[in-house]
């Protein structure tokens, strides 16, 4: 039989190693990809949702651990500092309440859609993906985890255990923006996230990412560097530099949702919006190094 729902990680690892099943979390990608009445595409399924250790968001001195089976609804309702606002905002934009109640953070990363809304916010949080298997445990930076459309660094016997946001990324404030052709339940034409730390109006740290405009969502590292030391109110002056980096690192495509030229244009606009919102969040915080977990 082809459906397994182990209660503990060890059993899951064994099944993974022995039978190479398809992993199943909330099923919102797995089940949506087939239209028939029965089980999706006949694959053997390993359902990880009964494994206690994979549920919930845990703060620790090192940061935040988001268990692989944590749903977007749980993220949206969690008590998290403003640096993680972008993630919470993305959580509320994923599909509908019905989807958010089932879909998981890890599933979103593993599905590796170029339009996955979870990726840009986690990129600006320097997220690490923790994987496990019978043979090894790994911590992979998110930017290396998603390797292309629908591909990840996971090996066939591995699974994602958790997503970690390091304490160092818990500083400042962040924001997420997405654009689609309707209000709810819409795949992003483009989206962006930004996190910013300021001191006395000066940007001391900035992290920016753009999704759905390249095979894998990208951080804008050059522009981030340039923002350091700039006054938060002067961001718009640097727009030409932003445009330049976008032109260099994005490779938007034409599809039925929008054309490439539009994506390139709107990506810049979304980044600026996120920066403005993150800046106002960051400057309205008490002048400290931000809250630890």
């Amino acid at each position, binding site marked *: 039989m082809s459906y397994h729902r182990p209660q503990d990680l060890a059993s899951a690892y064994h099944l993974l190693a022995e039978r190479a099943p398809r992993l199943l979390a909330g099923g919102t990608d797995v089940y949506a990809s087939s239209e028939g*009445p*029965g089980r999706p595409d006949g694959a053997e399924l390993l359902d990880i949702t009964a494994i206690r250790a994979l549920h919930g968001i845990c703060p620790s001195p090192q940061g935040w651990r988001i268990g692989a089976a944590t749903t977007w609804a749980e993220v949206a309702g969690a008590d998290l500092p403003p640096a993680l606002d972008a993630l919470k905002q993305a959580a509320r934009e994923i599909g509908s309440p019905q*989807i958010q*109640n089932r879909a998981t953070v890890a599933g979103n990363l593993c599905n590796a859609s170029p339009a996955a809304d979870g990726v840009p916010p986690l990129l600006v949080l320097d997220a690490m993906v923790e994987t496990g298997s019978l043979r090894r445990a790994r911590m992979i930076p998110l930017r290396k985890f998603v390797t292309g459309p629908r591909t990840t660094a996971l090996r066939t016997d591995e699974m994602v255990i958790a997503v970690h946001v390091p304490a160092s990324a818990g500083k400042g404030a962040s924001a997420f923006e997405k654009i689609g052709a309707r209000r709810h339940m819409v795949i992003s034409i483009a989206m962006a996230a930004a996190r910013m730390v300021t001191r006395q109006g000066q940007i001391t740290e900035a992290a920016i990412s753009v999704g759905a405009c390249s095979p894998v969502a990208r951080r804008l590292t050059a522009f981030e560097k340039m923002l350091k030391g700039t006054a938060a109110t002067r961001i718009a002056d640097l727009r030409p530099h932003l445009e330049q980096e976008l032109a260099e690192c994005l490779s938007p495509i034409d599809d039925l949702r929008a054309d490439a030229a539009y994506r390139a244009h709107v990506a810049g606009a979304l980044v600026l919006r996120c920066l403005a919102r993150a800046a106002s969040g960051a400057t309205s915080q008490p002048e400290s190094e931000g809250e630890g977990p």
Partner: protein
Amino acid sequence: MTPAATWISLQVNGRHYRSCAPPDRRLADVLRDEMGLSGTKIGCNAGDCGACTVLLDGAPICACLTPLGQAEGREVLTVEGLEGVGLGHLQHSFLAHGAAQCGICTPGMLMAAAALLRRIPHPGPDQAQEALSGVLCRCTGYARIIKAVCHANDPRSNTPPPPERQAVGISVPRLDGMPKCDGSESFGADPLPPDLLADASCGPFPASLDDSLMVRAIRSPHHHAQFTFGDLATWQARHPGIEAVLTARDIPGRNCFGVIPAFADQPVLAEGRVRFRGEAVALVAGDQTAVAAFDPADFPVSWHPLPALMDCVSARAEEAPLVHPDRAGNLLIAGRVCHGNAEDALAGAAHVAQAEVETAFVEHAYIEPEAGIAWLADEGGKQVLIIRACTQAPVMDRDACAEILALPEEQVRIIPSATGGGFGGKLDVSLQPLIGLATLHTGKPCRMVYSRRESMMSTTKRHPARMHARIGCDHRGRLAAMVFEGDFNTGAHASWGPTVAGRVPVHASGPYRMAHYHAEARAIHTNGPPSGAFRGFGVPQAAIIQEMLFDDLAARCGIDRLTFRLRNALDDGDRTRTGQCLETVGIRACLKALEAPWKSALAAARSWNAAHDETRRGVGIAGCWYGCGNTALPNPSTIRAGITPKGRVCLHQGATDIGQGANTVIAQIFAEALGLPLSEIVLIGPDTAHTPDAGKTSASRQTCVSGRAALACGQSLRARILRRLNMGENAELSLSHGTIIGHENGKEARLDPTHLPPGKHGYVLMAEETHDPPTTPLDENGQGVPYAIYGWGAQMAEVEVNTTTGRVRVRHVHAAHDLGRAINPSLAEGQIEGGIAQGIGLALMEEYIPGHSENLHDYLIPTTGDMPEITPILIERPDPEGPFGARGLGEHVLIPTAPAILNAIRHACGARITRLPALPHRVLAAIRQAGENGK
């Protein structure tokens, strides 16, 4: 771990269940098929529509995406359990507010609402809008649903109004509404309803759906291809459980159908060549598991793809191959209306505006994919094929199936199931002949449920249009002439293409006066899906270009855009461009009704724009007219009613109610004419064995055509009763314990039906009346009387455009419609709201691309969050031809929406959108274009 042998326990609606279904089955299927809880609907199996929403431990989820295994030990609440948890009043609120039209989305809406109400007993509209954002409704425009949810715990608003004597003009709740609100309604994919099972003439029944065979169609993955089958017999032998493999060779009758007999050209199962992606070539029938398990990719058919014509330009090119060899130039048919000399008049006009506009394929996206069941019944020793499926046109279905299956008409009986939305897409037959064929071959009941993809690929669409028009006026803005030319992509088969080609030239002027007019519309074949009927038959497309040019002309003349339309509006007694003299014309009243909101909206936009740069607001207006019923062709409706010996008044109402309200409106008209309370009327039908032909539910004809027949039927039955009572016209009738009582001038008379001999159909008194609207054929210049009745409307849209992202938000729509007489104002307003939702989709987001957007993930229709505030304004200028003066409304309501929105976008930011839908990237490009033009 061998889950096959394990039982999965869960709580469902407070009861303990143990299921032995495989744990990876979709919870939605387990609820429906094993637990008999068919109130949970399946619209997409992909999380996109929310029809399957149930609560899992209190949280709304899509049961179609949830494996049974994950419900283990948890608590599931479905629509059937709402009453049990004290939420029955939510269902009553839905009924009272008219929140259910077709009812297919209702269970999902109720469940999403239940989760909200448990958290927030008195939510505001924004909270309700968010909470319901995961459930799509294609009928209502959401307004009444949101109201019903916000007022669910407000008992005053949920008590039904007391029964009234007067039936017409009252917003009685939909007569067929309760089953839609409690989840018991039986749609095409649901178990047979108890009243049907009680009808002995339908038996013997399939004992349960499990005893029926499942049918699946093998469909072309190519837009155009030749194909050959491999060894079908061997393939079948290798697949135990498959009982029949059927191809064109197995069709006993004519392998050809089409809604307009003279143009019928569509094979039920293609022979050697497919003309569009999704065309069926073979059927596989077998037991449920065998059919569910088989992989269509493994079916022995080989395809040889051929070049495909995907748009009118390539199809009209000189050397283009022909989709149908007998249709030169790939021209199915052209329609034209000519009046005066338009070219000369344009040459002499002070101002001439012109444009080219292109629209997309638009999908009906009803939430219920096609589904039904067929079986062989024994009617007094005669075998009858019964087909129960969702439909808009039972009699046309019967005639088509009889011809295809080579059966006499009386041996085919169509019993429409409840239909979960149609909008024109369920006028053509879809699965009816397929399940009929499989049943005839196997002798067993056969069932079919289209997947969402199959539904979208294989059924009709709104015609993509490529239109060019020029309109001229004088210095004062008085219209002089219009030239309109349009190519309408009718796809691979005729379907309703001829209707579109005929309707568009009649209507392309809009409801305005102009002396010179030349309009031509061509239906062009391509290898796209067949374009058929969709709310408005091409008129919504034509209205877009005409109303856009009016704004151009108003600007050139320097006059207000509403004034421009008023200056040119048709008036009572005017002639149309087909030469028809109209007694009552409602457009001026509709436009006048918008004057006050227009002025204040313009002022509001001005002051917003003075303070904002990135977001710009604009206001747009558009008018519409629409002839009700078939164009220049007979389209009779017959209604029968009778009184049983027990004194029950039965109304045989054959007009299918696809959510628009025919069951209620026609009963209201009948009750009013008869003079008995509506609550005494027993509705029968539709069923081709029990109801006379009330024609198809299309062309906004049911209220005015079937309604007229119902009026005549009610009057005639009343006359018969009065004769028996020996009373005059003014007698008051009532029913008491089966006795009819008449009161007149203080006198009372009684009629006890038990004493009368039952006649035909078992009635002691009976009436049957037919109405066919008086029309005349159009001559070669399109002159004549194409319709007996027209309906009128004007809408005003207020939008906000984000000039950085090109996103458009519609903020408010005022909709003034002259419907002659509002038989049921609440239902009429529901039609308006639903039509506006579809108009918003047409304007801003809907674009069906064959092979690409065959699901509700990529094909976007408006959600709760995309709807503006809507202010319906009902105008009642009675039409002498309509029942109690009523005109049609169903299609009118969506015609002005898209042009009003597009004109508002233009007003907001200068963007002149000539390719629909106005997706953000197109709006942004048009804003830039406008900027460059302005330099």
